[in-house]
């Protein structure tokens, strides 16, 4: 016993180091296999408020540029309005709506790591919940991962764990949108079968399979495509419409039918 105590006292620094290292590796590995850690994320109260304070200062520097973007978007929407709208977007009865939209602002953004997250200033109090889609006027941005009262973290499409259903515009050939962590303006679309005719410059949009994003949200254009090692699927480099380094105003999209779709799908799976 005496010896054990002596041992502990002699190596207390080493043991402390080992313990703290294990703790941090534990957190890291646990979130490698599952989700972003529940506790360590920038949507928490302290970090959210610090980011919001810094954002309230820095947002002034880009006001004119941001105004121009919003005006451009309004112009686009008005054009749609004047030229005959698709029927379902003029419905007034809110129970008929499938998608609701909340506007938010980015208060922290990263794009240089293998796993990038974006913090936005809308949270549970604005009924933002995990697994809602986040888009900008130009294209998709990511999926809400964690929320606190006033803030939420968004798993960016520039994240090695991001996996979004996407298709080639005006066809129904769909694949998965992933990121190889190399460049912040290029993501990859995989699992498109070889027989699909592709052209450089084709537009990629979100597919209908995902219950997170509405169909036909723009993503980017084809920059380059190759067959993957199985020689039967394409691996397509998609250059993004969004400038991921410069994002301010975002929209959080909620699919009202998502619960129903998921329930139905799990029920079907369980019956098999």
């Amino acid at each position: 016993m005496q010896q054990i105590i002596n041992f502990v006292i002699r190596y207390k620094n080493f043991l402390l180091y080992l313990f703290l290292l294990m703790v941090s590796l534990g957190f890291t590995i646990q979130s490698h296999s599952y989700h972003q850690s529940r506790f360590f994320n920038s949507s928490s109260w302290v970090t959210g408020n610090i980011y919001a304070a810094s954002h309230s200062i820095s947002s002034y520097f880009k006001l004119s540029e941001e105004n121009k973007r919003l005006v451009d978007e309004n112009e686009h929407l008005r054009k749609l309005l004047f030229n005959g709208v698709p029927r379902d977007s003029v419905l007034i009865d809110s129970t008929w709506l499938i998608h609701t939209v909340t506007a938010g602002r980015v208060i922290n953004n990263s794009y240089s790591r293998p796993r990038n997250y974006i913090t936005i200033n809308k949270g549970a109090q604005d009924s933002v919940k995990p697994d809602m889609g986040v888009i900008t006027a130009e294209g998709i941005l990511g999926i809400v991962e964690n929320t606190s009262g006033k803030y939420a973290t968004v798993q960016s499409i520039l994240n090695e764990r991001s996996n979004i259903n996407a298709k080639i515009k005006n066809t129904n050939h769909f694949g998965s949108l992933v990121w190889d962590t190399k460049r912040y303006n290029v993501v990859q679309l995989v699992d498109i079968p070889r027989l699909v005719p592709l052209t450089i410059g084709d537009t990629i949009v979100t597919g209908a399979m995902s219950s997170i994003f509405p169909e036909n949200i723009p993503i980017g254009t084809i920059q380059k495509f190759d067959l993957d090692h199985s020689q039967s699927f394409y691996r397509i480099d998609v250059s993004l419409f969004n400038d991921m380094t410069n994002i301010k105003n975002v929209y959080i999209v909620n699919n009202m039918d998502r619960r129903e779709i998921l329930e139905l799908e799990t029920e079907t799976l369980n019956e098999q």
Partner: protein
Amino acid sequence: MNNNYFINTIRFGLLILVQVLVFNRLNFFGFINPMVYILFLYWFPIKENRAVFIGLSFLLGLAIDFFSDTMAIHAASTVTIAYIRPAIMRFVFGVNIEFQSFRLSNSTRAQQITFLALLIVVHHLVYFTLEIFSLANVLVIIKKVLAIGSASLVLCLLFSSLFSVRKE
């Protein structure tokens, strides 16, 4: 002594804020975000209790992790350099550090730079190994360690000459 605690507390807070609000957003060449908070470990008094030092470094890393959504990678790498700091010091300064009168500010410029560089290299190696988490990407890890490490070194040197350690 009291003064010492005060300075280190202020340093702890300021370095976190500077790191997350300024340097995490730098994105020089798209990926270079220098890590200046390592200066806390460079400046920390040598004769303090080691256990306290390791604990503080862990907290510092964890605080950075909270802000940058990186699980606990910063904490793991910071606690590692905190643990091996005495070994690095013995390597750089030789027997000098055994003397009661030893001060960081008394050592030569070359020694200070080597000390800082070694801290940064070890920290970045651990950090990017954990972040990328696959040995298939050794080249990416080395590239990042070299590029970001040299950026961190330059900035840390600038900071340390701006706020030079006087009588501690």
